[in-house]
């Protein structure tokens, strides 16, 4: 790599920094304040820009891209209404811990604070729904801010960050010296050095408490009726293999949260199905009767626990999570281990002695249904299960699925059998209607060889229908409970 320092304008510096991070796709929608950046994009065919019909669609696309590839998604929008149109997408990514860097441009520095045309304090708007926000008013801070933003988005518990660049900083020139993400994170900014040296939860976490891991290994040894909960953290951490090994070695039934879909095998005989409000009888009966419940990367949301006081009332509850602020937030636990799921599980597996056999307990749990059953409609029409199961049969087994929000979302999660992390992209925490189409575009962009399917529902369609007929979509069949396939 040519490490020599060059003088470049802010827009070119921004693009160079994106290239440093390995970005090859950005989603967005242009406008006046961000025009300098878009002008520079023409000179960089190595970055593909996917134009959506509305910024919200772009925000979900960047989010879907991130969730399905494990890479950081990037989304551009202009100042004012362009940036506020992102807000729902930012919150959606935040609630589901999806790493996205949102880049907005604002009016010139000398116009800030004067209620200038299309000026808005977007960092103020997005403060509670991002891991961090940045304002760049001077080009000299641009490169390191972008690098730091990517570091923060992907590290620790991942999440969205927003950089608001004032227009002058996209036009002015400054020295640019290339670096790599590894180099930057090793000796980058003073901020990163502080975050690292203090084990700041935004980018890391303290060393795993080995004592707690050993205690857990002993608890596993002693328990007779274990239940594992597979949460979204297993997906984000890439801990799917370790989790499956643990389940096998514990011979434990596994309940899956909405966000955990794909991390545990959909055809696995240990799977009890979804847990909580929309959960299966097997999951909820197991939760009620188990004597040890281990939740991995799950935040015990109200949709999972329903009534926290009665949740797993006969069990010792163990929580493994990367975010210290999730511990004892919704459910009081008996033991917790803070750390990345993959690392904690690897350590746990190394501390476990004999493998277990729990046939009696499994017989009990699996005497209940693993799928939610719905009554057959009286007029002889097809049930959602019939339609979705048939679709799952026809489509390639590794088909990626995105969903909107509502009844069909739960049906899709219940009736498609997700088998690998990233296979399901759904708005779990924020429940954003209109998420599915944008997300599908992003998932397809990140996974060009896969078939991507969105079971579409009519009301969701009307929330974010902009992208239909935007050249991205080919077929819109009868939308009610039908499948919309073939994204460009």
């Amino acid at each position, binding site marked *: 790599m040519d490490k020599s320092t060059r003088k470049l304008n802010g827009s070119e510096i921004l693009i160079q920094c994106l290239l440093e991070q390995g970005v090859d796709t950005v989603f967005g929608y242009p406008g006046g304040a961000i025009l300098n950046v878009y002008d520079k994009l023409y000179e960089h065919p190595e970055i593909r820009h996917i134009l959506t019909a509305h910024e919200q669609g772009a925000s979900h696309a960047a989010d879907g891209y991130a969730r399905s590839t494990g890479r950081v998604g990037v989304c551009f929008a202009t100042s004012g209404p362009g940036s506020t149109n992102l807000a729902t997408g930012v919150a959606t990514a935040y609630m589901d811990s999806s790493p996205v860097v949102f880049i907005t441009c604002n009016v010139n520095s000398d116009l800030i604070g004067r209620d200038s045309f299309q000026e808005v304090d977007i*960092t*103020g708007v997005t*403060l*509670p729904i991002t*891991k*961090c*926000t940045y*304002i760049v008013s001077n080009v000299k801070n641009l490169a390191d801010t972008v690098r730091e933003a990517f570091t*923060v988005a992907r590290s620790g518990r991942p999440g969205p960050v927003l950089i608001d660049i004032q227009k002058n900083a996209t036009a002015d020139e400054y020295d640019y010296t290339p670096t790599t993400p590894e180099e930057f994170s090793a000796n980058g900014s003073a*901020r990163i050095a*502080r*975050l690292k040296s*203090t084990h*700041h*939860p*935004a980018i890391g976490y303290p060393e795993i408490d080995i004592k707690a891991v050993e205690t857990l290994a002993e608890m596993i040894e002693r328990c007779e009726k274990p239940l594992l909960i597979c949460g979204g953290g297993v997906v984000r951490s890439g801990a799917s293999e370790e989790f499956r090994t643990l389940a096998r070695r514990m011979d434990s039934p596994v309940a899956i949260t909405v966000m955990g879909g794909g991390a545990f095998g959909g055809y696995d005989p240990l799977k009890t199905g979804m847990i909580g409000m929309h959960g299966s009888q097997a999951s909820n009966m197991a939760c009620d009767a188990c004597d040890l419940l281990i939740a991995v990367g799950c935040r015990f949301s109200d949709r999972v626990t329903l009534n926290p006081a009665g949740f797993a009332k006969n069990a010792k509850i163990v929580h493994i999570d990367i*975010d*210290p*602020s999730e*511990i*004892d*937030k919704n459910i009081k636990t008996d033991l917790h281990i803070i750390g990345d799921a993959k690392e904690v599980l690897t350590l746990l597996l190394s501390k476990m002695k004999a493998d277990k056999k729990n046939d009696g307990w499994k017989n009990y749990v699996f005497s209940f249904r693993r799928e939610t059953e719905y009554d057959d409609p009286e007029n002889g029409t097809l049930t959602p299960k019939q339609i979705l199961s048939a679709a799952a049969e026809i489509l390639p087994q590794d088909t990626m699925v995105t969903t909107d929000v509502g009844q069909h979302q739960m049906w899709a999660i219940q009736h498609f059998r997700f088998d690998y992390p990233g296979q399901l992209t759904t708005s779990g925490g924020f429940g954003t209607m209109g998420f599915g189409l944008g997300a599908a575009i992003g998932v397809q962009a990140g996974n060009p060889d896969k078939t991507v399917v969105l079971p579409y529902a009519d009301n969701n369609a009307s929330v974010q229908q902009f992208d239909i007929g935007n050249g991205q979509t080919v077929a819109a069949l009868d939308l009610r409970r039908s499948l919309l396939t073939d994204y460009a």
Partner: protein
Amino acid sequence: MQAKENEQGLKRYTIITAMDNEAGVLSQLAHLFSRKGYNIETIAAGWTVDQNVTRFTIEIYSDEERIKLLCSQLRKLVPIHYVEILDPSKSIRRELMLVRVKAEDRASRNEIIQIGNIFRGSVVDITPDSITLSVTGDDQKTQAFEELLKEFGILDLARTGIVAIERGEM
């Protein structure tokens, strides 16, 4: 010292935290408190030995469980360096209060000055019909001072809010 309780039986806590000294950090901090349903009773800030770092002392009413959660949420903010809850028995809390009192005759002027002396306050301004005093102490002391001055007629009053520091190890 016994920590105070409010009407809901919540205890008063003193949190100290340090943040990067840059635009926007106060709103990030304050926002988190309001998002979690807290009213900030007092907040005082200023830079530390390092001028790039601002240290805040914040007092709120809470309970053991919720404040632990709040602190771990605070620790997630990128500009935050550290967050600690001070133990009242091992820390010193002080605030500065400025108060302008009606003092239109010699008798009340004398009495106000005497009260000020007892509280080790100082007269910082005097006019024919008012006296302004400054006093430092914990909130109980400033509260007591305020009570005593009420009968003269308080014209204006300002508090800095509590700043707190841990006592040295013995």
